[in-house]
């Protein structure tokens, strides 16, 4: 059976393009345009992996969503795709304990990542 990947991003163009890529990799894609929509989706659907944007309704929507997904489905790997790192070198301060404990992403990726790299990272997380 095809694995299901949840993609959440408030940029509808990015969302469309990401969905296309993920489907080309041979996965099923479910999309949501924001944290709230994604939250209602995970009520009924357990994705095999989630790719989240960081800044959506608020600056840290992606983190909050990651936290909620992990609480409900601890074993679902989460990728946070962001353009922030590449622009500023900001690495979200993963060292202080209070942050690393609640930021539940398995991987941070730059949004400009090449399709083949993305596929490799997804496969790695899904252990394919």
């Amino acid at each position, binding site marked *: 059976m095809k694995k299901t990947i949840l993609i959440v991003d*408030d*940029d*509808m*163009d*990015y969302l469309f*393009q990401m969905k*296309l890529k993920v489907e080309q990799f041979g996965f099923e894609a479910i999309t949501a*345009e*924001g944290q709230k929509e994604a939250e209602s989706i995970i009520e009924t659907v357990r994705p095999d992996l989630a790719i989240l944007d960081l*800044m*959506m*309704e608020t600056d840290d929507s992606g983190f909050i969503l990651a936290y909620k997904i992990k609480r409900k489905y601890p074993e679902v790997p989460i990728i946070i795709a962001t*353009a*922030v790192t*590449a*622009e*500023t*070198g*900001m*690495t979200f301060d993963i*060292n202080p*304990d209070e942050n690393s404990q609640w930021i539940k992403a398995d991987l941070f990726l730059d*949004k*400009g990542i090449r399709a083949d790299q993305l596929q490799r990272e997804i496969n790695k997380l899904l252990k394919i």
Partner: protein
Amino acid sequence: MAEYKILVVDDEMGIRMGTRRILQNFRVDYPFMDEHIEFNVLEAPTGEDAIEIIDREMPDIILLDNKLPGIQGVEVLEYVKKNLYDIVVVMITSYASLELAVKATRDGAYDFIPKPFTPQELRSSIENITKQLFLKRMTQKMNKEGKLIRFQFLRVLSHELKAPINAIEGYLKIMHEKQFGDKIDSYTEMIDRSLERINGMRGLIMDLLDLTKIESGKPVQNLEKVDLTKIAGISIDTNRPYAIQKDVDVYLNTREPVFMEADPKEIEIILNNLISNAVKYNHQGGRVDVFVNQEKHRISLQVSDTGIGMTEEESSRLFQDFVRIKNPKTKHITGSGLGLSIAKKIVEMYHGDIEVTSIPDKGTTFTVVFPVE
């Protein structure tokens, strides 16, 4: 070019020399840095030597082995922390002593690198640390200079500029690879979306120009006696093509001139922003009403629409830079997120006030009040 000093503290000569070799021709740069950073590797075979070098050379980064012949690595770490030195300490440690490394991280080490490490692992660790350190120092410096707000603005700006480029690039790649076949018609929607994003970007650039004018122009305002009613009329005309396209009627409900000492261009920016928003966030067949009111000690501009409205929480965030209200109703609407913050900045230059009242699905009213003598 800047140079960061890296002190390697390890009793194994192989590790010290390896590190030196790996970092010799390595450099780190990224878009926000005007310069790149290279590394000067210092070596210490013992903790005692390390402390001496730390005091003398003040390195930027320390790669610290814990198991040393004399005093242990953690004691060197303690020394750095005790003296509040601005040094990033990274533990190099064998897998067997991971637990210790975790403890060291809790005690103030920035990170740890398990050994043996590959050149690539070391380089990417050093790259992260360098960026982190550079950014931290830049932030501290800017905090001192009050530039942090500016930096945050630029950070969001670069995000806002990059997002449409990414989107358009993505569509172009899809077309380039002919993912939907040979017919150009299959790509109509992608082309439309690309054009839409380009429009959005153009709007952002225009808004930025307005913002630059406000911020650099202060306090050089070309004050003259201006008729606000007339400017409202001009502004409505400017927005007319857009309103027709959206099937929204715009009415100017004031006939008589209302005069005020102001820079006409600035008043026009305010009104353009309010009226174009009122059209943009409206329903098909909706209307926009513009009033200019002369009262005893104040003049007010009012722009009301019959549009999608917003919640109280949404309107409370409205006037900040780059805030765009994101919900299903607004998802197809593009904007820079700067218009209202620009309007507010101008209004404040006139010691005025801008307020919003809104009811979801009913409409929104913006009121600008200028005090007059």
